[in-house]
């Protein structure tokens, strides 16, 4: 069992939190500060929130004898990233009223609002609750937002598979009513009758992520999840799921014991009952065997490697009471969103927009936020977020297509979307500065400009039409999954990035660090060299990632 000696600080906080309540109510009363009390930081995460402060303003405010400008980022729980137009309208207004106004679509198909002051947290969560959205377990040492292949066109039975996202999310929710009491003013009920057989009183050792893929597209990056489910479909019938465990990307600069890892496929389950049981028990094994003294080594990937895949699988099967079948053969061919108009098997239309780094806002005469509000207000499209921080205006019936199209045209969206470079529509960057406390370098504020420059080089080598996947993060935590990209840029310090290459296009091979601490000039220089080699030496349909590996550049 997990080492009980020297538990990490967070473990004690969880243990004495009375079902994640801690001193949150008191923290809200502390009018002298915009922050919450020390121990409550960790607990806020279980309620979907992170305390942050605007790092750009720290120095100025200190001189003015003002405390840091604390605010909170709230991340919603939206399994499979599907919301109704009404919910989008609500989110739009809530964002405008209580946050920076920017709606951030994340790499796990949900949305985040930033800059919410302590006093505005309750109004924010209460407004979301009115539209049937919550932030429970969006963060914290629990199962996070369940990602799922988002485009209905991916399969005739997409809806049936997509439903698993919600089922799993429900199955793995903590039982405590703390969220309802603290944020929604629900009557306090006895903590005793909220025993939680899954999470007990110390939850998981670390965050836990589940993703569901529908081959042949792997846009959810299924193997980067702690637990990946790969749908096995034979002539439009769901046979079951391949189960993969131990994915996770983060590494810490200079800590050899930490590494990105793709999930290992360990078996197959046919029925829904078995699948859900297996999912559930993977968590209980991690709960009982995961490392609770060193949070850097607490993710499932380390538990799996520590126990060994086979031992882990045995333990799992014992707990399940059944053995896993041999995994089915799967073929992934792509890892991208189907941009533009696509018609699915029910003859419904879907329009996928590329949203740069998932930031929905109105800026430099690109009024994306207003356009999306208008579409939502027409009530004619559902909103589906993709794992690439993009958005699908979905489930539009033939007769409504024109209306939606006209709104998009009116706001000049369609035209602007068609003028985006291939590299850009295959790019992702994490939030990083100014809100992310862990950021070492810029990411979403910088990548767009960098791509302008890289595009010029690509054009020079006539590679502008290649679908090269490029991802940037402000630190090695890997929030934009840079290690699973063909070009990964990982921030090491202000203006400096490690360059990773050699990832494949379908997300089944991680990249490798190629060069360290590059500034912009060096990044462009290195890429220029690589692109010219690629141009000269590439086989017919060979991807950039495969090329760099074949030619042993890494």
């Amino acid at each position: 069992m997990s080492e009980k000696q020297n538990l990490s600080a967070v473990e004690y906080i969880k243990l004495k939190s009375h079902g994640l309540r801690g001193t949150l109510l008191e923290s809200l009363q502390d009018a002298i500060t915009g922050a919450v009390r020390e121990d409550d930081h960790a607990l806020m995460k279980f309620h979907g929130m992170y305390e942050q402060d605007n790092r750009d303003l720290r120095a100025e405010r200190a001189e003015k004898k003002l405390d840091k400008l604390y605010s909170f980022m709230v991340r919603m729980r939206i399994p499979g990233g599907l919301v109704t137009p009404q919910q989008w309208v609500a989110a739009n207004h809530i964002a405008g009223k209580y946050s920076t106004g920017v709606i951030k679509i994340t790499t796990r198909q949900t949305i985040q609002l930033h800059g919410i002051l302590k006093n505005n947290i309750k109004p924010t969560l209460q407004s979301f609750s009115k539209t049937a959205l919550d932030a429970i377990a969006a963060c914290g040492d629990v199962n996070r937002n369940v990602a799922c292949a988002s485009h209905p066109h991916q399969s005739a039975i997409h809806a049936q598979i997509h439903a698993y996202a919600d089922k799993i999310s429900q199955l793995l929710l903590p039982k405590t009513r703390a969220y309802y009491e603290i944020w929604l003013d629900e009557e306090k009920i006895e903590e005793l009758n909220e025993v939680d057989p899954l999470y007990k009183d110390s939850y998981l050792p670390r965050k836990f992520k589940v993703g569901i893929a529908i081959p042949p597209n792997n846009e959810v990056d299924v193997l980067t999840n702690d637990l990946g489910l790969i749908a096995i479909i034979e002539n439009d019938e769901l046979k079951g799921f391949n189960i993969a465990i131990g994915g996770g990307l983060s590494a810490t600069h200079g800590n050899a014991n930490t590494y990105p890892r793709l999930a290992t496929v360990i078996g197959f389950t046919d029925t829904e009952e078995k699948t859900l049981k297996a999912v559930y028990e993977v968590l209980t094994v991690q709960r009982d065997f995961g490392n609770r003294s060193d949070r850097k080594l607490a993710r499932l990937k380390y538990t799996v490697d520590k126990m060994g895949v086979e031992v882990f699988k045995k333990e799992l099967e014992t707990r399940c009471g059944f053995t896993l079948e041999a995994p089915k053969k799967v073929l992934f061919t792509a890892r991208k969103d189907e941009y533009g108009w696509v018609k699915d098997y029910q003859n419904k239309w879907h329009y996928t927009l590329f949203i740069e780094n998932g930031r929905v806002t109105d800026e430099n005469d690109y009024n994306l936020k207003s356009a999306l509000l208008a579409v939502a207000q027409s009530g004619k499209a559902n909103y589906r977020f993709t794992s690439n921080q993009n958005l699908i205006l979905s489930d539009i019936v033939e007769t409504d297509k024109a209306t939606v199209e006209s709104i998009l045209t009116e706001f000049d969206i369609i035209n602007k979307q068609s003028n985006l470079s291939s590299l850009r529509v295959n790019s992702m960057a994490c939030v990083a500065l100014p809100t992310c406390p862990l950021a070492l370098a810029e990411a979403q504020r910088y990548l767009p400009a960098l791509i302008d420059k890289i595009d010029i080089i690509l054009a020079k080598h006539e590679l502008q039409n290649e679908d090269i996947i490029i991802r940037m993060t402000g630190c090695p935590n890997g929030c934009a999954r840079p290690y699973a990209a063909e070009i990964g840029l990982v921030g090491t310090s202000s203006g400096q990035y490690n360059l990773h290459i050699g990832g494949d296009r379908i997300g089944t091979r991680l990249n490798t660090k190629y060069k360290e601490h590059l500034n912009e000039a060096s990044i462009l220089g290195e890429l220029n060299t690589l692109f010219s080699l690629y141009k000269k030496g590439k086989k017919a349909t060979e991807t950039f990632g495969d090329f760099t590996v074949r030619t042993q550049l890494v």
Partner: protein
Amino acid sequence: MLNEIKIQQWNALIATLSKDELTWVHGYIAGKLSIGTIEPTVTASAINTTQKVTITYGTETGNSKKLAADFAAKAKKVGINAKLISLDQYRLTDLAKEDYFVTVISTQGDGEPPIAAKKFYDHIHQNGFTIPKLKYGVLALGDTSYPLFCKTGEEVDAQFEKLGATRFAPLQKCDLEYETEANEWFNKVLQLINTPTVETLVATVLPAKKITTKKTYTGTIATNINLNASGSNKQTHHIEIIADDVDYECGNSLGIVPENDLETVTEILTIVGINRSKIIAFKKESDTVINVLTKKANIAYLQENTIKKYAAIIQQEIPIVRIDLLDLLKIYPVKDAEQFIEVLSILNAIPPRLYTIASSPIAHNGEVHLTVAKDVFEIDGLRKFGLCSRFLSLQKTNTQLNFFIQPNKRFKLVEPTKDIIMIGPGTGVAPFRAFVAERDATGASGRNWLFFGDQHFTTDFSYQTEWQNWFSTGVLTKISLAFSRDQEEKIYVQHRMLEQAKELYEWIENGAIVYLAGTKNPMGKDVEHTLVQIIKEQGNKTEDEAAQYFEKMKDELRYMEDLY
């Protein structure tokens, strides 16, 4: 020496006197000669008919009230029937019926009457009636550091005469150290009342003994930062002045005579075409035109009587409304440089501005800190700034600044063991930063509760990090915050006080001292009302009982305010 008639009257009087009465007359005359240095040995029995006197006061910060009250007590002791009343309570129609009438009145603002005396002041100035029966004496409180010293007292004294009343005691002007002078003066008043004489004094003024204690310091600006974060509607400057020799107490304020801004002055010079270095006389000192215009003469928002004088000089009809000199010169130009020199001679000196000190001589040794809100106002759509607050906001570090320390009798930090409740929204927070810093430095045992408020938590929480430190170390026991514009409905400190009414009243009943500082209107008024309401409800008292309770707190200095 005495003429025939007087001698006869005198002898006639003497003949009727008993031995006691003779001794009294002897003492009285001695007293009268030695200008009141000995108390008259009057006893009630001694006087055939008891005299009546109405003692009125017009006060802003309470000094006049305190004096008037002492006077009334004194008068009663010697058997004079004294009626004590504040000028804002005084029934104006009673003036005609009055016999002896004493007024203690201070001067405020830029030579203006205290708000509480405004009604009375305006009434006596609207001539059209006479009060021949009235016998009056005026004691004027003032401060020699203001150019219009005891202006209001002077005006009241002169105006009574105009209305046909009899000045039975000379006008006494007093500086900040007024006690001795005031009491000596009142002793004389008592004697005069007790010996009804027919003689009426011609306008005589007993000048104030200018107190020497008030000293001008020169300090160096060490820090000048705007406390408000970007995005705020406010601009509040925290200014740290280094002056090793400075001597002050928490609760004092600092007086500064601002300089006029150079652009305006230069524009005036060019308009009137005068040589900037020409030497002229201003208020008995000779100096260059440029120095007078920048450092000495008030050219902003001229007083009405200055406008009148200006009109006289340039011999034109001018609407008597307050206006800046520059604008006046533009609309009603002077003939030439010579005429402008005449204009200079009618200008008042720049009045000093006060800023309550935000530092403690113990905690911030050798330094004086200020919390200065840049005063912004609009005149026909034009954004303008207050003279002194703008002047201070522009002070660069390492520049020198002249100032004086303004003591405040009715606003002091109490002994260390007492609990204190500090209510100071906006710049009202200044003295309380000083109080808490001092109590921190001296390890005072009393509890400290601060009520602070402003517009926005994120941009306007003055000294937030300092309060946080004091709160975490326990020096600051409680802090109640009201940020008016962080939610739909406006929330002010008085709302927080009501929320905390029970505890607040417990503290007060426990002997806590209540302090209020900041702007008088509307904040000061609202908070006072709220306090009375809390006393009424928590102590289940009637309106009057509550009011009395509050008055008592004021008199016993258990409630002190620093409002402006």
